[in-house]
């Protein structure tokens, strides 16, 4: 296969960077627009990252093959939640694995007829089936029944559904008894104990009482051929089931101030979901390298809360007025009034870089432009919307004294 000059140069750096690590193969089919990034081989991605996150070029269809090891086709089962911020992870991973030639079944918890299935990403499952993926519905407490009996055996099972042992144990037990070689779990970076010394890195103390912690321990005890746990934070990406950047756009397009709790300097990770799916896909394709590991499933840059507001405004091409407030003093629950935790919530993906040779491609300024284009086209900006909590905050704070013009 012919390499472009840039790709050839990138390959050598990617080689040094990911020595011995598995390369992802890209399919020869043109990637769909929302997955154009994930279809890019990592060699090109690494080169772009070295160009200091310049705006990603439009010609994303320039796919080529980087082949470092013989590829094994895997049969992967993704047990996916039917709602919430993590729903999109299974969707992107399924698409990425299908594009790479693997066999993918997505078992969504609950009923196919449920109202929840009308929301993205579920409303876009045709993108999975048309790519050869299988989508089923059922109760994760009985995976066997849901995926159907018979000789179908999976190489890999990913639980992207349960938050505690009650929900995940049946999936783990079924996988173990079915002889599944690799078990992956979507946990949460929320289990880290607060620290004076950010970022959260793999190995740091976690809250023992957290449901995800119990699950991670249980999985580790099962002696799968390979197991790994992934701890994500916040995500953006087309098909998201939960608002993220939309919360900011809603206010910005209506020229409303953006109320941010505290002093707005709290740092958090907001990753494009393609970073998560690329990390998971690497683990699927390199089970040995991923074995027995915890991975912070986040991009490698954090953003301040004020910074997120500013970046969203820049993506929308308008100015933003940020208003800081003390939730307690104002009398609002920060969890309801603001989409992110009111504290530093900042992890780094060190294990994935070191063990998997993974590279982050989230470019928040650029990615938010794409998200804004979707938002603008959706008509959501014109809908009548109530901002009760905002109004309460602004009234309490007194707009004039506390505003920060960004």
């Amino acid at each position: 296969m012919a390499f472009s000059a840039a790709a050839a140069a990138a390959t050598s750096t990617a080689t040094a960077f990911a020595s011995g690590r598995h390369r992802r193969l890209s399919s020869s089919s043109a990637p769909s627009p929302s997955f154009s990034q994930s279809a890019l081989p990592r060699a090109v991605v690494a080169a772009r990252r070295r160009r200091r996150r310049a705006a990603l070029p439009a010609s994303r269809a320039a796919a080529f093959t980087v082949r470092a090891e013989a590829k094994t086709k895997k049969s992967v089962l993704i047990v996916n939640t039917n709602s919430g911020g993590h729903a999109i992870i299974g969707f992107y991973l399924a698409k990425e694995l299908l594009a790479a030639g693997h066999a993918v079944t997505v078992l969504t918890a609950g009923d196919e007829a449920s109202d929840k299935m009308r929301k993205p990403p579920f409303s876009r499952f045709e993108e999975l089936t048309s790519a050869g993926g299988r989508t089923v519905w059922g109760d994760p407490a009985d995976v066997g029944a849901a995926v159907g009996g018979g000789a179908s055996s999976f190489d890999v099972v990913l639980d992207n559904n349960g938050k505690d042992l009650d929900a995940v144990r049946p999936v783990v037990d079924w996988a173990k008894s079915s002889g599944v070689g690799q078990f992956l779990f979507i946990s949460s970076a929320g289990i880290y104990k607060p620290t004076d010394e950010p970022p959260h890195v793999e190995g740091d103390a976690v809250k023992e009482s957290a449901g995800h912690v119990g699950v991670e321990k249980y999985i580790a005890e099962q002696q799968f051929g390979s197991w790994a746990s992934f701890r994500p934070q916040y995500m953006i990406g087309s098909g998201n089931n939960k608002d993220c950047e939309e919360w900011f756009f809603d206010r910005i397009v209506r020229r409303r101030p953006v109320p941010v709790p505290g002093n707005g300097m709290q740092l958090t990770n907001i990753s494009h979901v393609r970073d998560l799916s690329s990390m998971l896909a690497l683990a699927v394709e390199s089970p040995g390298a991923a074995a027995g590991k915890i991975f912070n499933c986040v991009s490698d840059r954090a953003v301040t809360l004020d910074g997120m507001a500013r970046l969203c405004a820049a993506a929308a091409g308008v100015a933003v007025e940020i208003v800081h407030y003390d939730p307690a003093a104002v009398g609002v629950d920060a969890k309801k009034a603001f989409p992110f935790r009111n504290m530093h919530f900042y992890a780094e993906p060190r294990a994935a870089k070191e063990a998997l040779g993974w590279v982050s491609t989230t470019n928040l300024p650029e990615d938010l432009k794409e998200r804004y284009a979707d938002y603008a086209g959706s008509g959501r900006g014109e809908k009548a919307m109530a901002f009760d909590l905002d109004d309460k905050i602004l009234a309490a704070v007194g707009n004039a004294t506390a505003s920060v013009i960004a």
Partner: protein
Amino acid sequence: MAATASLKSSLLLPSPISDFSGAAVSVSAQKRRKSWQPRGARMQVSAAADSKNILVMGGTRFIGVFLSRLLVKEGHQVTLFTRGKAPITQQLPGESDAEYAEFSSKVQHLKGDRQDFDFVKTSLAAKSFDVVYDINGREAVEVEPIIDALPNLEQYIYCSSAGVYLKSDLLPHCENDAVDPKSRHKGKLETESLLTSRDVNWTSIRPVYIYGPLNYNPVEEWFFHRLKAGRPIPIPGAGNQITQLGHVKDLAKAFNVVLGNPKASQQIFNISGAKYVTFDGLARACAKAGGFPEPELVHYNPKDFDFGKKKAFPFRDQHFFASIEKATRELGWTPEFDLVGGLTDSYNLDFGRGTFRKAADFTTDDMILGKKLATV
């Protein structure tokens, strides 16, 4: 009590070499080599092919003190270029007399003012240094005469600063990030640009806040003074600003590991601690390091005060930290000290022994605390 005492200083190198001239140096060098004779094996090492003739610009105050020791231990010939105002060498706490004698007998001194560019050029041209460590360079003009004088220089290793990074909402700072041409450290940036433009093999190290025994910048010392005095720690803003400290010994190791390293050629590396820390967290870490009880933290709005020329807090009032991932990946270097461990090392070897660089000054603290009391 002990005033601004520097560490216990011991005998200096005899003055024959302090007036630099070719003859004088070779005579003294020969004298020193004679005294090395009994150490047969070591003589071999210093004559080994990979032993370099190294010039350190500075090297008597903080980073260079530790770096020069590493270089001498590795068998390199080390010359420190300083004005001679401070002792050329000083015995470190915890360093045995024998170790110190070994080191001080080997390190050489080139006395001069690096601002005297003509002198720099002529004195360096007279000697063929293989490598230059520029620890105290601030402006690009200071570097030009050095490069001009040493056309066969194998490597120019420069101590830059993470202060060159442009303030950003996206963190940590990485080596390819945008830099601020207007920052206080623009001289460092201009030096890096000069090095890039000249035909010289260069490496630039960008530390964040450096700490450790002998620190002349009151970083940890600022907290230790207050902790020792049992005073509250005044912290600007919410105290959730995130900064980063790197131990000087880890920095010295990094400077050493880039020597002759092809992976460091024309490269910039952020060098600091593996983790970052909030302002509040740093106060607590210093307390742990010195065995003090958990400190009382007092937050204030800096805009409510006019401190004049005095600095009320030793860190810039913003997030400021850089990723060391490139260095760990490319150089195989990792910091040995975690924050509390490193601060303990600093405390035990410096402040805890009664030594510090800057006397305690609680003027700004009292302004802050006074106002706090008044508003209660």
